[in-house]
């Protein structure tokens, strides 16, 4: 069925349930060429980029378009979930060699499909972290300007350290020792590399790359001079309302709630494994919980840039995710903050070294992030979303842990040195990280 693009105003006129329903339809339904699927004259790049000549094929498994629907890959164990190895995506900038038809890593990075459960909470956590980090930079600069002396400022948010910056009295900042986040101190929590700011931004990127469905707010006439940038005969393929609906749908996917095993032996092993997970150092990056001040998910978000709808471009829409947190049984701390059991620090780390290099298997840096550096994978839902690793080529949790090098090396070695039983406890613990109750 050919659908009309949904405007922002039309989206705002819908109830939250209707908006989610529209988002679910767009997420699950397979786009057709009558709706604009395909991009014969446009590449997969996030910056609108023309091809020199028309794509040779309307579908292309490697360079895309490679899927009819979001749900074609994000479907395990249910819609919005992860994907098996068969759904791997091949990520390239798309500026040169946009039609690569080889697995050669000099052309693309092969990535497994992540699940999106609880994605709204992840974005909210990242927004709050960004606010705090940028406030710390601002305070350091103000102090440097006031005192006339350089100020070395540790960057710390939600008890996660992001290195230090040096603020100078002239207003410049040295970011050489900033760690795990881009120099602009925007925590980008999506994608295996942590290079995508928001679900909205992710949706626009992915819709173009995988479906050839081009969002008006990025590929439309305002920024390209053309309503049909990909020259497939369909103008204005995804309206701002469509992207809003997709964003709200993903943000509202229920978060993994964890699982309390009925089997007493498993329960006991998981409890021991949780302690072990801490003591051997896994939890230093895979933070069991991160505190969240507010569950109000606003769209557009505060840190997107031009090409993704921004605050100021449109009337904001707010969805409170608190009911999801309550349903999932999330705890709150003494300050009333929700403790989101994301099991990540939302920080990037180098994850390979000379001896343990399995996760350093890429050749191409992505958006200024080195080839061996990845965002700490969120472990919630990990029990239901094998295979593992950013390439989705590790069958078991044990294999995934043993693949950690770089920043994860010490914990990995400690894990490897455990007794079989102790390792089983850790795995038993991770097996409680179910996607949904």
């Amino acid at each position, binding site marked *: 069925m050919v659908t009309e693009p949904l405007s922002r105003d039309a989206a705002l006129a819908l109830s939250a349930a209707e908006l989610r329903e529209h988002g679910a339809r767009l997420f699950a339904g397979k786009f057709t060429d009558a709706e604009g699927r395909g991009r014969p004259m446009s590449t997969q790049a996030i910056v609108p*980029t023309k091809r020199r000549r028309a794509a040779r094929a309307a579908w292309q498994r490697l360079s895309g378009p490679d899927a009819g629907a979001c749900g074609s890959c994000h479907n395990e164990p249910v819609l919005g979930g992860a994907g098996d190895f068969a759904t791997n995506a091949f990520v390239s900038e798309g500026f040169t060699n946009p039609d690569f038809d080889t697995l050669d890593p000099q052309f693309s990075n092969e990535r497994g499909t992540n699940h999106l459960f609880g994605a709204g909470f992840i974005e909210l956590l990242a927004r709050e972290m960004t606010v705090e980090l940028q406030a710390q930079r601002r305070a350091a600069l103000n102090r440097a300007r006031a005192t006339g002396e350089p100020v070395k400022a540790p960057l710390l948010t939600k008890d996660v350290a992001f290195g230090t910056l040096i603020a100078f009295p002239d207003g410049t900042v040295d970011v050489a020792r900033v760690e795990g986040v881009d120099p602009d101190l925007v925590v980008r929590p999506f994608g295996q590399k942590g290079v995508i700011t928001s679900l909205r931004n992710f949706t626009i990127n992915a819709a173009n790359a995988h479906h050839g469905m081009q969002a008006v707010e990025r590929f439309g006439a305002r920024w390209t001079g053309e309503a049909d940038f990909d020259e497939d005969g369909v103008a204005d*393929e995804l309206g701002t309302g469509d992207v809003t609906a997709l964003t709200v749908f993903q943000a509202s996917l229920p978060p993994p709630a964890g699982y309390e095993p009925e089997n007493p032996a498993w329960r006991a092993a998981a409890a021991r494994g949780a302690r072990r997970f801490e003591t051997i150092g896994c939890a230093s990056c895979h933070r069991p919980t991160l505190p969240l001040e507010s569950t109000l998910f606003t769209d557009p978000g505060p840190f997107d840039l031009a090409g993704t709808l921004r605050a100021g471009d449109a009337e904001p829409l707010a969805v409170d995710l608190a009911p999801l947190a309550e349903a999932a049984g999330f705890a709150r701390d003494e300050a009333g903050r929700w403790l989101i059991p994301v099991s990540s620090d939302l920080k990037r780390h180098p994850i390979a070294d000379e001896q343990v290099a399995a996760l350093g298997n890429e050749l191409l840096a992505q958006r200024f992030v080195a080839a061996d550096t990845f965002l700490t994978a969120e472990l919630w839902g990990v029990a239901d979303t094998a295979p593992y690793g950013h390439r989705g080529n590790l069958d078991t949790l044990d294999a995934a842990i043993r693949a950690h090098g770089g920043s994860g090396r010490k914990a990995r070695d400690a894990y490897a040195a455990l007794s079989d039983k102790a390792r089983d406890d850790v795995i038993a613990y991770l097996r409680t990280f179910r996607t949904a109750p």
Partner: protein
Amino acid sequence: MRAVLLSCLFGVVCAQAHGAEIPRMVQETESGLSHAYEGPWEFFVGGGAAAFDCNGDRLPDLAIAGGANPARLYVNRSVAGGPLRFEERPLGLDDRRARRALGFYPIDIDNDGLRDLVMLREGRNLLLRGTGDCTFERAGAQWGFDGGSAWSAAFAAHWEADARHPTLAFGNYVDRSAPGSPWGTCEDGVFLRPRAGETPDYAEPFALAPGHCALSMLFTDWNNSGEVALRITNDRQYHLEGEDQLWRVDPERPPRLYRRGDGWRRLRIWGMGIAEADLDADGRPEYAITSMGDTKLQGLDPDEDDDLPTYADIAYDRKATAHRPYAGGDHRPSTGWHAEFADFNNDTLFDLFIAKGNVEAMPDFAAFDPDNLLLGDWSGDFEEAGEAAGIALDRRGRGAAVADFNLDGALDLVVVNRGDAPSVFRNTGPVGAETAGNWLMIDLDQPGVNRDAIGARLSVRIGKRTLERRIAVGGGHASGSVGWVHLGLGVAERARVRVRWPDGDWSHPYEVFANNFVVIDRGAPRAKYWYPPEAEP
């Protein structure tokens, strides 16, 4: 997801007409710039301004010529994203010397990290040495500079290879003391190559003869050779057999004119201002040259050899002639002055600003002659947007400063008007939208000589496209800027910046994030980020 017209389905070029996004230029009436460029015939031309940071806060300050009135200096007191506010400071000149100024160009001549000012005058030109915190002292005698007694309206500067100090070029207008003046009595220009030494020494002038009443000049790397030439536009109102000129500037040799045999093609216009931009990013810049009537837009003639300076006019093809007012109903030809390429709407495309205004009361030319804002569009053409942007005022524009005065990533505009206060426009984003495209502001710094990297080229890669900027002192109409270089990035969130430093060395790529101010120190492994002062909430 609507189907486009059938005619578009099979065509290679399928672009639908879509207007460029129009910046909303809000006139600031309480900016603090209370000043008028006035005076008799000698000040029918000129009326320039320099935008540069003179107190180290990285906000562009302003020096504005006054003609018969004293020139003035204004310190920028704007806050980031706020209204444009300036506060007058003494320029440090006695009343006599402060008057009769036609224009200003900023440049750090003595490499002390403090910008100096070149003050073009009707009479003795002045070099004002910056001494910090927006104070200046006359340095002509100290630097062996004889300001002469000519009527100067054009200036350009460039560091030649291995030179410690810049080569200066002055363009002079009518020699009023010559018999028959003013017709055919144009004064020669002056070319000042510094002597070797620690201190600037300009005691050996070379005459740029013949002079043809220059009103704007620019050192330009026209053929991407790394060697500059001096492009001069001249006013045919007073020269008889003159023309626009391109001087070849070979190291350690006197400049010599490109002639017909070298490929130079005669251009005779009422040349008022020059701007350069590499519109097609091929390394060879295009030039906008203002005049009375048609503005010229010149690119190398594609039918001629690349190594010949043979230019063809592409203004008509690109819809950039701007030959008569676009508003007000006066259909007589326009009079163009300052020209400057910049990206006012952050869409990555060059726009072209032209200050307009009747010389004084010339009856054959438009009396109501609003400034132009020609927005570049995706087809490569320009579209007039002056009225919609809000800059179509009844003023006689002359020089101008295009800079981000309130450090919000959008270029603002100050136009010096003859007989009226400057027009001050704050760019508040696109008409019909709250937010504009992404942007990047870059400041280059190199140690030792030529601190502001005059002559450097910035090559900014976003996706498959390369945006080019060249750092230059000269051109426009008696007006120049030094400091932040602005680029609109459209929807790009990141960019790779490479610098071709003035000596020809290329930097490694600097990876930077959009919507930031970045400082690139030569040789530094990474760019530094800079932030305007911001109150804590």
